């Protein structure tokens, strides 16, 4: 079950649905009773083209693209189906085409997805949809992933007989803070209306005008402010709804697609990272019925931008009297290792981010254990609390709080006050901040100056960075592979989409450098390489493999607190 409740699940029939025989393009096949005919065809590798149907929204039946020929068992005089030699019912084909999206499987249902009639229906609908379409594909962001283009190619007749003046409608309509509407491109499938009403709970979209002048509009006194508004741009089959963020940024066919997860909260929505030549251009939700189904929130979707910020730290450096001085990685890592080793373990602490991957956290843990010897080194994560929205977004804005807890790195910042106290009482002389700003986390900034060793590893300039003795530029979520545990205890993979910029490095690489400099064992060069050792060491991960996580993740094998 997804962490969001969909109003409908036409593609997932109830588990106890009995199997029935339906006749699909000449063959009898078995499917669960009640399964939507579009999904029936899909399960057997056939496409029934459709625009308005969406597996998670109510059935509207307006586009008429999914028309098919429907058969029913022919009844004998006893009102029972007449059976053929093989015990299957004889079929009677209805003269009128039916819409697949509003038909569900029942015993003896006949389905023809291709026939002269079906093809004529598809050609007809395509011709009508294109008649008044502006055909601005050359400048349309949807081009390349547009269902109008695809179906025109697959089912259209290839030429238009329309010589009249096209209907003009509003373009560039600003319907919300993050989304724009082009009414001329809209094919009036009402997916966006149904999404806003049924999923986002913000019934602000509708249709105005009549007939061929119909157009989508926003309620005159409203804006589409929902934190889920951008999902409508995904489900809009054409380029009518575009996100202000991605609009005119990149032709989609140039985007490299990498399957990963969102790291903006503990839900861990599955995403596809669209990148080109070292730059991430967009995140789009990727279907995972155990997590986010088809959706993600706007904050998460737009949350990647800081990785290309001009405040990104790109050079490893050491602080000299007159400021930070860039240096060679090997040299600096050696210096940091040496400085850490010299410290009394009890006077050292790690302030770690719960936005790091399990593998990175595992290496932090190894580093801590290596340095601690018989004594103990304090580690803690910084909690980030937001507001759960009842849909996907969690109140925990750290994507891997569960991993940090499982790996014994920290638990919701319970020990932060101890850490603060130790600094205030002068018991601490070394602090290693990983992707966290100690000052923002509430540690007294003025006192950080009293530390003899302050190591900073992260991506964006912050107040701790300004004071750090060593600066180790790490990688963002898009620049590394690794795993995280979401709020439902599902272990999911991040995949590297782009290389870490400048001289920044993947955090596993940096931590490995420190471990090796301190005489530790070879932990593996990357997240996937670290994973087996971690799975062997940490009981909660026993039995998991990197490959086995797949792109849909796996639940934790054992229940953990």
């Amino acid at each position, binding site marked *: 079950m997804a962490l969001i409740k969909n109003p409908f699940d036409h593609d997932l029939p109830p588990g106890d649905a009995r199997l029935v025989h339906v006749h699909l393009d000449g063959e009898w096949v078995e499917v669960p009773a009640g399964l939507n005919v579009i999904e029936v065809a899909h399960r057997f590798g056939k496409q029934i083209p459709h625009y308005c149907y969406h597996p998670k929204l109510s*059935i*509207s*039946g*307006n*586009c*008429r*693209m999914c*028309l098919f020929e429907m058969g029913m068992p022919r009844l004998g005089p006893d009102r029972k189906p007449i059976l053929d030699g093989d015990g299957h019912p004889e079929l009677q084909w209805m003269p*009128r*085409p039916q*819409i697949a999206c*509003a038909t569900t499987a029942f015993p003896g249902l006949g389905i023809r997805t291709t026939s002269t009639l079906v093809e*004529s*229906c598809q050609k*007809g*609908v395509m*011709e*009508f*949809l294109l*008649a*008044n379409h502006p055909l601005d594909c050359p400048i349309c962001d949807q081009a390349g992933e547009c269902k109008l283009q695809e179906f025109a190619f697959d089912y259209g007749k290839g030429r238009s*007989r*329309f010589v*009249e*003046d096209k*209907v003009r409608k509003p373009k560039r309509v600003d319907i919300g803070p993050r989304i724009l509407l082009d009414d001329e491109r809209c*094919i*009036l499938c009402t997916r966006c209306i149904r999404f806003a009403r049924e999923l986002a709970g913000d019934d602000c979209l*509708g*249709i105005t*005008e*009549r*007939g*061929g*002048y*119909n157009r989508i509009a926003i309620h005159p006194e409203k804006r589409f402010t929902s934190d889920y508004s951008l999902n409508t741009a995904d489900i809009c089959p054409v380029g009518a709804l575009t996100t202000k963020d991605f609009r005119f940024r990149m032709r989609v066919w140039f985007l490299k697609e990498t399957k990963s997860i969102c790291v903006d909260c503990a839900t861990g929505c599955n995403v596809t990272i669209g990148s080109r030549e070292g730059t991430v251009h967009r995140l789009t939700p990727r279907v995972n019925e155990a997590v986010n189904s088809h959706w993600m929130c706007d904050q998460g979707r737009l949350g990647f931008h800081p990785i290309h910020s001009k405040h990104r730290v790109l050079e490893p450096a050491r602080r000299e009297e007159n400021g930070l001085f860039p240096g060679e990685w090997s040299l600096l890592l050696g210096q940091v290792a040496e400085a850490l080793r010299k410290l009394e373990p009890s006077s050292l602490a790690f302030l770690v981010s719960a936005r790091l991957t399990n593998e990175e956290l595992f290496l932090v843990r190894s580093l801590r254990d290596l340095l601690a010897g018989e004594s103990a080194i304090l580690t803690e994560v910084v909690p980030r609390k937001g507001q759960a929205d009842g849909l996907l977004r969690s109140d925990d804005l750290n994507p891997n709080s569960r991993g940090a807890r499982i790996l014994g790195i920290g638990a919701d910042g319970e020990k932060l006050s101890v850490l603060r106290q130790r600094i205030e009482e002068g018991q601490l002389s070394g602090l290693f901040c990983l992707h966290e700003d100690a000052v923002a986390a509430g540690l007294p900034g003025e006192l950080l100056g009293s530390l003899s060793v302050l190591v900073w590893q992260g991506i964006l300039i912050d107040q701790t960075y300004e004071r750090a003795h060593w600066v180790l530029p790490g990688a963002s979520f898009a620049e590394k592979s690794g795993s995280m545990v979401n709020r439902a205890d599902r272990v999911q993979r991040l995949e590297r989409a782009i290389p870490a910029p400048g001289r920044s490095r993947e955090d596993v690489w940096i931590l490995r450098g420190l471990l090796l400099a301190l005489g530790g064992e070879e932990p593996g060069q990357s997240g996937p390489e670290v994973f087996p050792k971690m799975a062997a060491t940490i009981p909660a991960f026993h039995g998991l493999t990197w490959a086995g996580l797949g792109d849909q993740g796996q639940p934790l094998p054992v229940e953990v607190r």
Partner: protein
Amino acid sequence: MAQDGTVQNPTREHRIILRYADLPGYTPDIDCYLQHGGYEQLRKALSMEPAAIVAEVKASGLRGRGGAGFPTGTKWGFIDHAKNRKPVYLLCNADESEPGTFKDRQIIYKDPHQLIEGMIISSFANHAHLAYIYIRGEMARGAKILERALAEARAKNFLGTNILGSGYDLDIFVFRGAGAYICGEETGLIESLEGKRAYPRIKPPYFPAALGLYLCPTIVNNVETLCNVKHIVEMGGAAYARIGSTNNTGTRIWCVSGDVCRPGYFEYDGGAITMGELLYDVCGGIRNGNRLKALIPGGSSAKVLRAGEIYHIRRKNAAGAMEEIEMRLEDLPLDFDTIAASGSMSGSGGIIVMDHTRDMVECLDNLSAFYAHESCGQCTPCREGALWMRKVLDRMTGGKGRPEDPQLLLDLAGQIGGRTICAFGEACSWPVESFVAKFREEFESKAVAEEEKDRLQVTH
């Protein structure tokens, strides 16, 4: 006029529904209605079992007067009252927007209590405790008349709680549309009544008898249909079934408009009069001494019939065997079945007459303008097709016809009918299909004229 108040005329008009409507001195007031025996059938009905009324309606053979001619008793039989746990609603379709149709408004304006009595009986028969009259927005005065009549009926306890001591409760409200033809389509009407845009619903699953108003079982009937129920209760289903011909029982109100000398509405027993008699004897023939060119027999959505056409009508003869007979347009008896067998439909009873001076392309352009404006725009073929066809026809009448236009029109119409959410798809494509097929030469001549013009321009 005969002693009993029935309007008799040389052409056998038999007024049951419009019996009093045009009687001098007859008013919409309840007192007038009561003086003429009003609400007596309600008393009778309330003493019957609801199922018995449904049985009488079934026996009467009454077919819906809204357009499709669906048997009313069968429609009422779809609700299984033993199983149903939801409220049942009865809706009177008073949207009357089909061009050429002006019968329901005669009842509403002149004899509203007849409708109300028919509705109360029908509601009782269908276990409905709430009913609405969905009236076309443009008929503002009609809405006022109905409001007043309902208030009068309430004051006399024909409506309200414990009606006439029977223990039966019912209220009826008037709901005004905002002026759209599609609100007459029953599921569009239901959506509109729910306060939404009148987008017709997909069927299946939203058959009104199962999932109608607020997804509860709902009966939608036309004004004229509901009025008939009162008379069925009065005379009994079997007696009613003897009026008119087999399968075309009772009377029907025909609305004649267009190029005849005396247009109007006329009530006849089903099949009792032929098209020729109606046009020439009743309506005084074609105006200005012109010749009949074509007519649309059942509201603008029906396929056009061309003067001079011969129809091969298959029907059951008196012995029950199928026979095929030849008929001219003028010989067609006015009923549901023969008009259907001629390839068109008697629909809402609106007969639109066109004489030989009419340009059929202009006529079709006029109809297409209506359909392009009235398509709700929900589904692709109708939304795009209706407007496209209109634009083609506008262009043709504007002197810019092309040789390929007639075929294009036929193709477009063929891509709409049978592929849409509601019957509007057929309503907008049938006129095009029939006009172009039957008057192809006129449509082709529009292109010829254009070519001529080009040639003329060149030589000048």
